[in-house]
Every structure is written in C-alpha cells, then in structure tokens.
C-alpha cells in the first residue's frame, strides 16, 4: 500500500468524523500552541536583551523616580514614574559632581495629541536635551536634533520619529512644517533615523522637543521622568551608580537608602528583570504545553482505539483481501499522525498569533523561528506515533475472521 493511498484513507477516516477529530486535536492544538508561544517569547526576549546591550553599550544607567523596590520594570520607558522627585538640578548636580560619568540626558516624557493640518496622532512627546542622541545611541536622520540654544530659549521646535512622519505627512517633506502639539505650534527641524520596534516600544513613534519646552510650554511640569546616564566605561558602572545614589540621597535629604525616592538601574538590570518575567512565563507555558500534549496524546490514543473498534469489520475485510499486518499498522499510524500533525499545524498558527498578540499588547518581544516550527512538528509527529502505535498494533494483530464476525 503506497503512502499517498494510506494518506487518502486516513484523511477520509478523519473527515468522516469531523467534530470528533477536531475535539481530539484540541489538546495537541493547545500543547503545540503553547510550545510555539513559549519558544517565540523566549527567543524574542533573549534576542532583545542582547541587541539592546549591543546597541546601547553596557555603560548606561537610568534613574527614575520611585522607590528602589517598586514597580517591575519600565525604566526604559521613562515615563513610568509618578513621583516628582527628580528635577533638572539633580541632573546638573550629577553631571558636575561625578567624575565617572560621561554624559547626562535629563528627560521628560508624556503622551499628547499631535496635529498637522487634518492629520492627527497620539504619540509620546519626549522632552530631551542635546545629549539624548549619544546616551541613547539614537541619532538624527535628516535635519538637526535639539541643541543647547533650543533648550535655553525654550524654542518650539520638534524632531520627529519616522512613524510620526508617515502618520502626519505621508510621503511629503516634514522638515520646515509646523505641527501642533496640544494646540501649541512647533516647527519641525529634523527627522530621526529609523530604529524600529525595541521590545517595549516603537522608538520611531516619538517626538522630541526641547526639555524646557516640554516642561514649561506643554505639560507645566518641573520634574523629570528619567535621567539617562552614560558612564565613562563599563568598569566604573558600579562606582558611578554608588556615587549617584549618595549624591541624590544627600540632595533629597534622605538618610536611609531603603527610603530613596528614586531608582538607579543599569540596562543589564532592566533586562534581567525582564528575562525573569519571561522566564516565569516560559515555565508556565512549558507546563501548559507538557500537560496538554500528554492529555492530547491520550485523547488521540483514545479516539484511535474507538476508531479501531468501530472499524473492526473493515480491518477484517482489508485483511481478507490481502492487507498485511504492516499495511493495517501503517493505515492507523498515519491516521493518528495526521490527526496530531493537523492539530500541530493549527497549534502552530495559534501559538504564532498568540505570541504576536502578546507582543502587541504587552510590548513583549517575540520571534517565530524556524526552530519553533520544526519543534512543533516534531512534537506533533512524535505524539501521533507514540500514542498511535498501540491502537494501530491492536488493529494489525486482529484475526481476519474474528474481525469480520465482530458486531
């Protein structure tokens, strides 16, 4: 019996019981889906971590308002802090007072509506200074970035991320045009280079304006949401961190470091927190995957046993017209593998969709790799074979006459 014919026979067997086949596949669908989601989130997270470190270097520190133990992560987002404990003077004090650091980038980030003619969009507005580019390793693409005089004169100028340009201007030139942020006109002086999705956020979806303009003209704030710091090199990171802590504690008149109203974290620490969370998620998904694959496999075995019993007469007949043991074995094995493979394919789709959804909603990086696709199929086939062998063997060992007599 050739493979194509076996496949056709198996396919017919499955089609004859659509609902039953679908329900049987559910376990495999969930299991494989979880495996795929698990791997894609896992690889996404570690890819993200390594690329961020490569990109920013390992000499970056973020200071954000809040208590040291508070909030999971979000330092990279900048706008997380609700406390108003950091201000421009802190940033200047750090810059002037600590020798181990190279550059300081004070930032104030908030969301606002932006209008150009009839187009409007909601984006994050980053109040930044000229140091932002270097500290974040995120550079101007065309035009110019905010400079010191813009900052001093609270000038209403804006540098747009590429997404914002597309949203507001389509394909026409943005530089020189005037946009309105919260109804206040800003002149576009530059467009950033394209950076793309960076795990938590799309970096191209931001507008940079002078920090002073953000604080005074737009949001009426005196505090900062983040101070990003570039240390001189990796070796002095710990030293820099300690010095900054001491300095800020003194400035804020706090004696006990546990009661600090700010947090200092390095890029690595942030990524660490993130990988801990993804690790937990991975274990959770792994557990779901393992359990549902086993349950799914047992479901397949069960349905195959039912199928063998139901088709006992058919098996008897096939043997009577010359089917060998291995023909019957192959027929049922192919059927169970087809069942689990189909479930695996659907699970792959769902796992894929699911991890994309998680990325979208949670700003979670995820990558569907060839490996996860292969692994999903491997699992599906393995389950189909493992749980299908026993029912198939039972079928193949039936005595033709007894099988034909079966009621």
């Amino acid at each position, binding site marked *: 019996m050739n493979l194509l014919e076996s496949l056709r026979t198996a396919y017919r067997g499955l089609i*004859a019981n659509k609902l039953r086949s679908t329900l049987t596949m559910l376990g495999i669908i969930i299991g494989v889906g979880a495996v795929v989601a698990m791997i894609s989130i896992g690889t996404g997270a570690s890819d993200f971590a390594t690329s961020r470190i490569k990109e920013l270097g390992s000499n970056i520190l973020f200071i954000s308002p809040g208590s040291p133990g508070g909030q999971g992560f979000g330092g990279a987002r900048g706008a997380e802090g609700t406390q108003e404990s950091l201000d421009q003077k802190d940033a200047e004090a750090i810059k002037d007072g600590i020798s181990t650091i190279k550059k300081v980038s004070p930032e104030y980030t908030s969301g606002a509506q932006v209008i150009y003619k009839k187009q409007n969009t909601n984006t994050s507005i980053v109040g930044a200074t000229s140091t932002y580019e270097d500290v974040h390793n995120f550079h101007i693409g065309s035009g110019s970035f905010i400079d010191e005089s813009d900052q001093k004169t609270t000038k209403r100028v804006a540098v747009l991320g590429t997404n914002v340009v597309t949203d507001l201007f389509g394909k026409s030139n943005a530089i020189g045009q005037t946009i309105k942020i919260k109804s206040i006109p800003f002149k576009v002086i530059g467009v950033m280079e394209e950076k793309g999705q960076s795990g938590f956020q799309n970096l191209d979806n931001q507008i940079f304006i002078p920090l002073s303009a953000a604080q005074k003209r737009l949001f009426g704030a005196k505090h900062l949401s983040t101070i990003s710091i570039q240390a001189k090199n990796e070796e002095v990171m710990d030293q820099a961190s300690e010095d900054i802590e001491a300095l800020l504690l003194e400035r804020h008149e706090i004696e006990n470091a546990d009661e600090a109203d700010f947090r200092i974290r390095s890029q690595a620490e942030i990524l660490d927190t993130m990988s801990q969370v993804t690790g937990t998620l991975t274990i959770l998904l792994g557990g779901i995957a393992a359990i549902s694959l086993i349950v799914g496999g047992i479901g397949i075995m069960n349905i195959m046993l039912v199928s063998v019993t139901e088709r006992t007469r058919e098996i008897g007949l*096939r*043997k*009577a*017209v*010359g089917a*060998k*043991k291995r*023909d019957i074995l192959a027929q049922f094995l192919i059927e169970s593998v087809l069942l689990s493979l189909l479930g695996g394919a659907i699970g792959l789709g769902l796992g894929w969709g699911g991890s994309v959804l998680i990325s979208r909603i949670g700003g979670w990086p995820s990558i569907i790799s060839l490996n996860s696709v292969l692994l999903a199929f491997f699992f599906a086939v393995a389950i189909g074979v493992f749980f299908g062998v026993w029912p198939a063997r039972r079928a193949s060992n039936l005595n033709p006459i007894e099988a*034909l007599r079966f009621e």
Partner: protein
Amino acid sequence: MVEAEAEEGADHLARHTNTVIEAKDLVKTYGTGDTKVDALKGVSLNIKEGEFVAIMGPSGSGKSTLMHLLGCLDQSTSGTYKLDGSTIKDLNDNDLARIRNEKIGFIFQQFNLLPRTSSLENVMLPFTYTGHANKNARKQAEETLRSVGLGKHFYKRPSELSGGEQQRVAISRAMINNPSIILADEPTGALDTKTGIEVLNIFQKLNKEGKTIILITHERDIAAFAKRRIHLRDGLVESDSAKKKKEIIEST
C-alpha cells in the same frame, strides 16, 4: 489409505489436471474447556483446478469454518492443508496475506463492502495491497463491474445499491486480481431466488473461464449448478458426490 486410492480414482474420472486444494484431517477447535467447540473434526478433501464445488450441510456443521481454512483466513488446529502445493502451516503472515490477495477471491454472505465508498473503489481495494503499481487499475475495475452488469453504478455507495448489486460488487472485488480460486460463503443467502440465479450465472461463467469455484449453499437448486457436491455434518464429510460416482462405478 483406502480413501487416498478412491481419490485417485476420482482424479481419472474428472480428468482434471492439477490438484489445487489438498486438505487432510483438518480439525478446528474453538475455545477451551467448557466452551470448547469442535467445528471440524477431521475433514479431508482434494479439489482440482477448474472444479465447481458446492458445500452443503445443516447449520453449524462447519461449512463456514472449512471455507475460512481453505481461504487462508484462519489456521486449522491440526491437519494439513496444501494450496497449490505449498503447506499453509509453513507460511508466515505476509505470505498468507499475499495468497489471499492474489490466489483467492472470497465472497461473503454479508457482502462486506466498505461503507461510504464507491463501487469502483470497493472493487479496487485488493489492488491497494498488491504491492506493485497498477496503471490500469481503474480501467480493470470498470471492466469487471461492467462484466457483472454494473456499468451504471461505478460511483454508487453500497447503501445506494440493492442486495444483488452489492453482491455483484463483492464478486467483482473477488475477481479483480484474477485469482485462480473463488470461495463464496452463501453468496445468495441474502438474495431472492431470481437475483440468486443471476449471481450464480456469473459463477458459472467464471468456472467456464477455468476458475475453481467453491460455494456454500443451503439450497438444492443452487447446488445443482455445481458439478460436485460435498455434504458436511457435525464437522465431518458426510458425502462427496465425486466419491459417490466412484462408488457407483465400483459397484457396476
């Protein structure tokens, strides 16, 4: 010993050349202990190529059991069975499957067609297990179905066919691999007399083409189609028309 000589006598008389079926002292016991049933208690018979044999006997006399042994669907408890010169006991599972596929066409009282499957595909089923690709499979199946008068029913499923038509599909399936022996267990049992006769005409035609036909029947007028009749009773051969003729010859 005496019996063997008698068989040889029959041999001459019938002028058949090859003995295709040689069964000696076939015993088949089902179950063990209290539920033990001796379905066959020592059946010996020889059947030559091209014979048309009817097996008769009361219900429970072991006709079907014998047929299953002859068709290599089951193995005897003791005794020897040679088919085309090879001893069945010595063959493995795969060999038996090949014999069932190529040498024997089996027809059941209950047709045993695959449900939800067209006539054409039912007929082609033995090809599935033939082991070599057959480009003319479809054509051959169509031809066979036409030869039994089912030219219009290629794509009908068993549930859409009458009993007689279903049995003719089953016969086509038994014929498709051109086996030398056709075994039929009450092929007309589920049919009315008229359709039964039609089916028997097919067997006669096949017999004329040189095939060995063995069929089980309860009905005398159906048995009349056969040149040789074997009666079973309680798992033993009660009478065999081939031997009777021999006896008649001896007594004259």
